[in-house]
């Protein structure tokens, strides 16, 4: 029993379903489905969270009707082929004392005809801002068909062993489209006031109740605030909630904020937005109803969750990303070992970020998340152990692991080095880490110095704790040359020494302490590591389009610089959209008066005068700046590997990981580091 988090650890009953604690693994897309049916990937994924102590799992949306196919890997629950998978999943989850609900849905106009080859269905002929297809306003016949399809899937869920169902009425759903005055312009009995707009919801609820009976748990997920002008606001939802409660058709209320397409950035807020940003929704709903209420939205540690319960803002906590990062979040938290939780960074890079890209759900810091179904969860081609040719033999090789304890030297204590050390030590190798600098964390530690990027630093906190737990010693302030390595006499060397800055052709040198008439030149890392302190008018040259340039621009503007960001891409922060950071960065950039120059390249620099060209039109203009800050590709810092190989150290015993192989993002560094332990 938890001493620290007694409320989070306490039981609660939703309808007829008693839950062992208050931690819910709420519905979220995974892209695990294959050909419309749940896969072994789903099974292993949900089982891991049930085993990890979550009280309730709510599945990703199960689509009720063939007219609904917004993205490729959707579960088509109207198809009876899904049943075998559902039965396997519910049985596995029940095996760990957890309960499981099925979320059922029809996406309406928030869909695509590209997969189904059929026109979309919606309350009114208004295209969704993301999918942009004109839908067909549904007639009475189609409404009846949709209602009965909800009933059919609810029955199927009940028969497949689910403990309840949740009807999606928020994010992306035809029910929300009916509820919202923005998308429902109907003149018939399904439009107009809240009674008309909620008519579809109640017809669905009555149909579902008729099929599954009064003793099966049924909940709805309501949208508290669409965050769109003229859309659903909390007062509308409170009104709806009262009617829902009076109808006695529903056992619990799940809550949400935003719309999956137009205001997606509010739904799964990144680290730039404060935790609990949307608690005003569940708390007001809870005050207005006796029904149990689930809160969710970037609640990533048990202390936050406990506080929400203690303050009476909700009865249960939806914790998704934190349980993706650490499947054992619940058990660790409720046994008061929450210091051991692999804390979610809210970076959105490999979970949320992959959904729109049609890739399987993963996690930046936990390579096995989403890949629990593989015997070897570390990322590797599913076909073979090594690069080269596929053969049945190499599949067998994959599962044979003959490990002799080796002495491994890890050079560099950035994420790649730390992760290598942890995975190698876990395999029984004897590992030593050497770091040239006075602190660990590499570029990630530097990046986390920007206030809106601070939680990136949780990666280093997590890894440092794991390194300590396996007993590996980190020696700081020690740069290793070949002789030093030879002296240490390792069997294997992991070169994780990161990257170094690179100058573009139009610059000849970095200038960290410019004279008055000189242009200061540095890169973003030098700013973050306080090697350079740009002042005055600063041009950030961003060829990466991710957080490097935009976060430093923000930092410098906050320090009083007049900042301009130039990028050859079509707009500044082209990759920020994937992690849902584009909107909030633009808000902050506007407040800090950061100027944006998209579609531009620098052609020449003369003193402080910079020639800039709009590359699409070839229009050139000149501007004066005091500093140029580069956010560009770096080059690997791996000369140690080459030098070692020259001394005759076997090249198969030298492993390059992370930026030392090729400077890229965190996830690549982590998976390469994880893989090292299997290649030795």
């Amino acid at each position, binding site marked *: 029993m938890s001493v620290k988090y007694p409320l989070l650890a306490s039981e609660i009953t939703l309808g007829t379903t008693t839950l062992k604690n208050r931690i819910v693994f709420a519905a979220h897309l995974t892209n695990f489905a294959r050909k419309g049916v749940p896969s072994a990937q789903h099974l292993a994924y949900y089982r891991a969270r049930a085993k990890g102590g979550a009280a309730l799992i709510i599945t990703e949306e199960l689509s009720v009707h*063939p007219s609904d196919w917004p993205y490729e890997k959707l579960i088509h629950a109207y198809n009876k082929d899904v049943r075998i998978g559902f039965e396997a999943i519910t049985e596995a989850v029940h095996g760990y004392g957890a309960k499981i609900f099925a979320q059922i849905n029809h996406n309406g106009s928030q869909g695509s005809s590209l997969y189904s080859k059929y026109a979309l269905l919606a309350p009114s002929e208004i295209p969704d801002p993301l999918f942009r297809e*004109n839908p067909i306003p549904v007639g009475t016949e189609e409404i009846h068909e949709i209602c009965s399809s909800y009933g059919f899937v609810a029955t199927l869920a009940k028969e497949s062993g689910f403990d309840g169902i949740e009807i999606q009425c928020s994010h992306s759903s035809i029910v929300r489209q009916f509820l919202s005055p923005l998308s429902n312009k109907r003149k018939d009995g399904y439009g107009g006031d809240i009674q008309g707009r909620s008519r579809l919801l109640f017809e669905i609820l009555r149909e579902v109740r008729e099929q599954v009976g009064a003793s099966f748990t049924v909940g709805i997920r309501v949208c508290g605030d669409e965050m769109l002008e003229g859309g659903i606001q909390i007062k509308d939802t409170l009104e709806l909630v009262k009617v829902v409660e009076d109808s006695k058709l529903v056992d619990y209320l799940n809550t949400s904020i935003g719309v999956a397409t137009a205001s997606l950035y509010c739904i799964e807020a990144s680290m730039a937005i404060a935790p609990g940003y949307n608690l005003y929704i569940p708390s007001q709903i809870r005050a207005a109803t006796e029904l149990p209420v689930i809160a969710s939205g970037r609640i990533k540690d048990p202390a936050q969750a406990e506080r929400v319960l203690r303050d009476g803002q909700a009865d249960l906590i939806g914790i998704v990303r934190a349980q993706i990062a650490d499947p054992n979040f619940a058990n660790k938290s409720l046994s008061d070992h929450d210091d051991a939780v692999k804390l979610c960074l809210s970076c959105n890079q490999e979970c949320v970020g992959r959904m729109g890209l049609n890739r399987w759900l993963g996690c930046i810091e936990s390579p096995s998340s989403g890949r629990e179904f593989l015997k070897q969860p570390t990322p590797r081609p599913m076909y073979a152990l090594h690069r080269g040719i596929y053969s049945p033999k190499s599949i067998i090789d994959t599962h044979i692991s003959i490990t002799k304890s080796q002495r491994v030297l890890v050079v560099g204590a950035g994420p790649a080095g730390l992760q290598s050390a942890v995975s190698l030590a876990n395999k029984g190798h004897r590992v030593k880490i050497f770091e040239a600098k006075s602190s660990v964390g590499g570029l990630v530690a530097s990046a986390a110095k920007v206030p809106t990027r601070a939680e990136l630093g949780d990666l280093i906190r997590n890894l440092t704790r794991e390194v300590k737990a396996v007993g590996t010693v980190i020696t700081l302030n020690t740069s290793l040359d070949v002789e030093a390595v030879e002296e240490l006499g390792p069997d294997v060397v992991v070169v994780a020494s990161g990257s170094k800055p690179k100058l573009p052709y139009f610059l000849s040198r970095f200038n960290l302490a410019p004279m008055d008439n000189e242009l200061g030149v540095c890169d973003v890392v030098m700013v973050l590591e306080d090697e350079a302190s740009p002042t005055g008018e600063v041009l950030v040259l961003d060829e990466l389009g991710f957080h490097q340039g935009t976060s430093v621009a923000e930092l410098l503007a906050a320090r009083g610089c007049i900042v301009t960001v130039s990028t050859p891409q*079509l707009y500044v922060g082209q990759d920020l959209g994937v992690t849902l950071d584009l909107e909030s960065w*633009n808000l902050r950039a*506007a407040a800090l008066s950061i100027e944006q120059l998209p579609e531009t390249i620098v052609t020449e620099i003369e003193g402080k005068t910079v020639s800039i060209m709009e590359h699409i039109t070839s229009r050139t203009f000149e501007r004066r700046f005091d500093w140029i800050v580069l956010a560009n590709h770096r080059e690997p810092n791996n000369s140690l590997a080459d030098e070692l190989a020259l001394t005759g150290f076997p090249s198969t015993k030298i492993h390059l990981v992370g930026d030392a192989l*090729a400077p890229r993002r965190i996830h*690549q560094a982590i998976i390469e580091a994880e893989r090292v332990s299997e290649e030795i």
Partner: protein
Amino acid sequence: MTESHTLTSPIELKGLELKNRVVMGPHRTNLAMGRSSTEKLLSYYMGHIRGGPAVLVTESASVTVDDWPYEYAPLAPAIISGWGELASYGKRHHCLVVASLSHSGLEGTSNFSQYAVVGPSLIPDVDSNELPKVASKTEILEIVEAFMSSARLAFEAGVQAVEINASHRSILRQFLSPLTNQRLDEYGKDPSLFLLQVLERIRLELPSLILGVRLSIDELTPWGGIVKEASLATATHVKPYVDYITATTGGLFTKSRYRSNFRYPYPTHVDLVRALKETVGTSALVVAQGSFFDVDEAESALSQSSCDLVEMTRALIADPALVHKVQLKGPTSFPIKPCVGCNQLCNPEDSRNIAVDCIVNPKHIDTTTLTYLEPRLYPKKLSRNAIHKVHIVGGGVAGIELATLLGPRYDEVHIYEKERSLGGLIALFERRVDNSRFHLLLTYYKERLSGIKSIRISLEHAVRSKDDLWSLEEDDLVVLATGAQSTPLVYVVPPPLYLSEHTVYTDTASYKGKAVAILDPRGNTESVITTEQIAKYAQEVYYICEDPAFGSRIAQTGDLLDSIRRLKHLGVNLLTFTEIRSIDPSGQIDLKRRFSNENRSIQVDLVHEIGGRVAPTLHPFAEISHVRIGDARVARTIYDAVTDARKLDLYLLDERDT
């Protein structure tokens, strides 16, 4: 070289007679799965084999497992047995099946393999921006071996020919190009070394295999890429090893020029191909690639001896029976359905994994769900077996496509069109677009319709009631294909300000010299075409969208940067990332930059909304029609209009068969 050839004349390739000069080239289909072949993929290719090309080159397969450029990218060792099956099917139809082998190098992704991509130097792909690891000599030799072992697997599986990709998305091209190869070792000094090692290795090991190479002969970036002289030198080096060379264009910065859209003069590089042919002489055949949309262009390339074979991939996707139709010769009632060069669906190079498709020839329609999905579309009162006569109200693309499908099966098929000519929206805009090929589609329909005896076309014949139909009888099928009405749909525009789509294309005087705001909630091809049209006549054009950049949905067409360039040259004010706060009847529009407090107002005379079309809600005639198709059902695209017609056809056929 004075000898003249035609598309249908045979030619010898390494002792094998090819029955004609038409090649179906390699292209991404998204039909493979688990990196291996599927029934769908094989049946797609078998359909194309039956259509009559002499050569079919398969979708490129990766030679190593860590090269996994897109989710459904084939892997050579996994898919070869499928290609073997296809090869034996090809033999029965006298079609040579060629297995394309490739390695994407830095133009791949680590997304699926979870391995770092590999490239000649530390230069990232412009689209993914993912930095590659620099290939070591050992890694290069491993890739050479992988090409070799994949070729051997193909040969052992009964595939007679292999094509090595050194063009679009290929590590071999990346080594050939100074844009990507900045190495200082022997692979930098001799950029063709890697390719030669691959070809030599395969040639020596498998002398009887037909070996081809696909070469980018111009990266169209003269300031740094592969240029003519270099590619002719490469051709001289490779000719001892290969039986044919396919000449393509495009490179790192010009991927879209590998299969240019209709805006580029086609075929794109005949002169270069001729130079290549002269260099290669008779030691290898030369295949021309690059926007051979039409038979005439292909014939002229052959007759001028610029090349020996012609790749007509997109033309074959638009009409798989192209070769058979050419063989019929002369004017026939079976004209070729033309590729319009739009690149909208045949080039599915994005993460959605949409299967290869064509806006004028929709594929992959699932017949099992025809009635289940759209109960209103096929009312139960329709008695399919009793139909002898069909009335199609509206002669746009939905209506005329339907007429070509139903015509041969029914006694009488009437088309009623209120305008003076057929074609609907396409007829409206096509002549306004530079290099547009849509008129060819209308020509196709006219020829096809005139060849079907049962079809009766009534032009300038508006249908207001059932009395306007020719002798309507009880069991007649009545189809409403009247298109949509032009009206703002997403934004509230005061009516006097509204510039309708019809006016944009038919009455340019009405907005000449005026200030026009274009509101774009779509970001698609129509956005480009309509904005250009308005900008040609209006004095001041404000293009306004909420997207962070223009044309968010057109990357696949290869026209994104080009269209932005054209619009900027036309002086269009591109107000992106911009919300519309209000539109006053006086023409004042209040704008706000998204996620900021930056506001501005503009003053205009007229306002147009891109894609502002709605299906007619109350058609005086609706109660007696059985079916609505195309925009009359709901305003969508040409593809949807043709698909609606196909589905109705299949539905009617379905009943007859059972």
